[in-house]
């Protein structure tokens, strides 16, 4: 198939490629000199375009396009096309059962409405708290677990599996059994704190504690992931660094604080980005917790708000505007990470 394409390609750009030497392994030797148009022969319009593209994007740009162009176009249409379409919708006043949005009158009315909506402000703050609180707590717990396991405790492998296991569970499952554990009357959490004479606390009903309770549940699910990332980072640090720090007179705490943990910067950034993305996708967890778009009071986040506005209230344009805000937040997390990785030549 590739051969046919190449023949077709050769036919389209007659002069410059016809004399190329075909290697026995089927590849084509494209010498720099071979692409210089000979004086007197016309490269043709396609040839000129290929020439320009190749000199801009690298010598095999057009030739390799057979492999990447189709997936690239599909991705562009269904991901980035959809985002742009969503942005357009957010600029209209589309709502209710109208057949199609009216694109003739675009303005930022929906964004203004969002800023004036206390529900939106609350959801944005909750999203932010969840993002920071969940990521921070999970990283700290993961780091402590990783350090303990790295110090060669017994049953190391079993502990690693036990901690990592919750991550393999679906949000739907974990939400359901945290719902049971947080149950006001007979949940295990209230039973346990009842032993110490505390509670019972309405974990999911009390606006003040519902968000920390949800952060705790999510932390339980993802600290194993942070632990594995940190464990890999710890294993990459040569044991001489621990020994050098000890001989230098540092106590165990100081050794970790000043020598080991600073070397885990890369692991921290990778884990933090993944955890933040999970935090923004906490929609699944909240949806499963209550079985609907309306999470407990005090735990509404932008993702639930967006879906509720769009599909429950049919405020299509308003939902789109919230989606764009959420998208911008995600981008502000991923963007710096990509720049960081690019600077370190990892991309």
């Amino acid at each position, binding site marked *: 198939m590739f051969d046919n394409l190449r023949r077709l390609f050769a036919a389209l750009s007659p002069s410059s490629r016809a004399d190329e030497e075909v290697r026995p392994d089927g590849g084509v030797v494209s010498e720099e000199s071979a692409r210089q148009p000979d004086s007197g022969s016309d490269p043709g319009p396609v040839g000129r375009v290929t020439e320009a593209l190749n000199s801009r994007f690298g010598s095999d740009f057009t030739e390799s396009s057979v492999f990447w162009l189709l997936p690239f176009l599909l991705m562009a249409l269904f991901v980035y096309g959809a985002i742009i379409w969503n942005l357009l919708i957010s600029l209209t006043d589309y709502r209710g059962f109208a057949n199609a949005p009216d694109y003739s009158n675009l303005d930022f009315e929906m964004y203004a409405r969002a800023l004036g909506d206390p529900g939106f402000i609350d959801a944005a703050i909750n999203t932010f708290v969840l993002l920071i609180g969940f990521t921070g707590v999970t990283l700290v717990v993961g780091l402590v677990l990783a350090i303990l396991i790295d110090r060669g405790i017994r049953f190391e492998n079993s502990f690693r599996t036990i901690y990592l296991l919750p991550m393999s569970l679906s949000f739907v499952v974990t939400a359901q059994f945290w719902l049971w554990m947080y149950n006001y009357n007979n949940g295990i959490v209230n039973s346990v704190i009842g032993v110490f004479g505390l509670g019972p606390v309405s974990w999911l009903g009390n606006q003040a504690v519902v968000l920390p309770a949800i952060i705790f549940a999510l932390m339980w699910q993802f600290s194993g992931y942070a632990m594995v990332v940190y464990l890999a980072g710890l294993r990459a640090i040569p044991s001489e660094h621990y*020994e050098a720090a*000890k*001989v*230098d007179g540092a106590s165990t705490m100081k050794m970790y604080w000043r020598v080991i943990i600073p070397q885990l910067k890369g692991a921290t950034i990778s884990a933090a980005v993944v955890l933040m993305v999970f935090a923004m996708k906490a929609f699944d967890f909240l949806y499963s917790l209550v079985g609907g778009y309306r999470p407990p009071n005090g735990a509404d986040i932008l993702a639930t708000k967006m879906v509720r506005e769009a599909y429950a209230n049919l405020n299509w344009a308003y939902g789109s505007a919230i989606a764009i805000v959420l998208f911008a937040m995600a981008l502000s997390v991923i963007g710096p990470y990509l720049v960081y990785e690019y600077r370190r030549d990892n991309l």
Partner: protein
Amino acid sequence: MATLELDSVTKVFQDGNDEIVAVDDVSASVDDGEFLVVVGPSGCGKSTMLRMIAGLESITSGTLSLADRVINDVKSQDRNIAMVFQSYALYPHMSVRENMSFGLEESTDIPDDEIQQMVSETGELLGISELLDRKPSELSGGQQQRVALGRAIVRDPEVFLMDEPLSNLDAKLRAQMRTELQRLQDDLGVTTIYVTHDQTEAMTMGDRIAILNDGRLQQISTPLECYHKPANKFVAGFLGEPSMNFFDVTLQDGVLRGDSFEYPISSDVQANLGDTTDLVLGIRPEDIELVESASGDHDFETVVDVIEPMGDENTVYLQFDPDAGEDAETLIASTDGFTRVPEGDEVIAQIPEDAIHIFDRATGDALHNRSLDDAETIDLE
């Protein structure tokens, strides 16, 4: 700065149900300001010994004392020692300055500005002042080595421990650093224990060398004494390149009988041997003379097998009996670089009696060492 004393120090590692003795009953005393080189083949326990002194490995039995204080159970944080690692172990996230000040910050209460002062002075001493603000990854191997050294020196510890610190450098730089380290140690006068597998480092750097094999201390003495008066066959074979020639011989009527030759010995030498008759004859390659014609009992006809020209000298592989093929006993001789001996030629190898070593074949102990009458200028003590 203090005397370090090892008394019957033993280290046993548990590997499942097996016990692996890494260091076996080593006793040694390192004087204040002394430079002791510990040398031995890979896996002889020399690094384990160093790590025990550093407090990074526990001591199974025996006592380790520093300045008359037993430090078996003192944590390495509190031992006031500094160690230079083979891999340097510089903290990659800290600048050179931070690397060097870390130890002082952690182990002393010296105020920050004084620490910075000390770091700058050490930097000048080692010629790394302009590197102080760089990260280790921006330094060459030789510069990293200097920083690792500076990190130890700035601490002004009671003992320096060095674990093959020069083995990651190229040959030229290694020779240069060897001299510099010696000069530094002389100036600072800090008790130093230096582990290496490189016998050139062992011979040239130390005040004394300790030779370890299989966790056991073979000999601890000055480099020249170890070289000329080895305590046993292992030491004799380990020091010197190319190494000493060994031949299994049996003593009969004042004659050492080997597979390919007979070597008569004088009554003086014989007196050292006692009743032992199963012996090993040893002779250093540089003591063998190649002569024109056989003139005595200690001259042997040989055939040149291979010549390795080194420039300043040639290493010549001689065969006693070329007809024996693979099994032929080979004698290695060093001659100066200008002597030309074509391969395949017959030459006479002279083995002077005053240069031979004789070892007990069963125990390996040296029974007779070369005489040093012609080397009065060498100070062995």
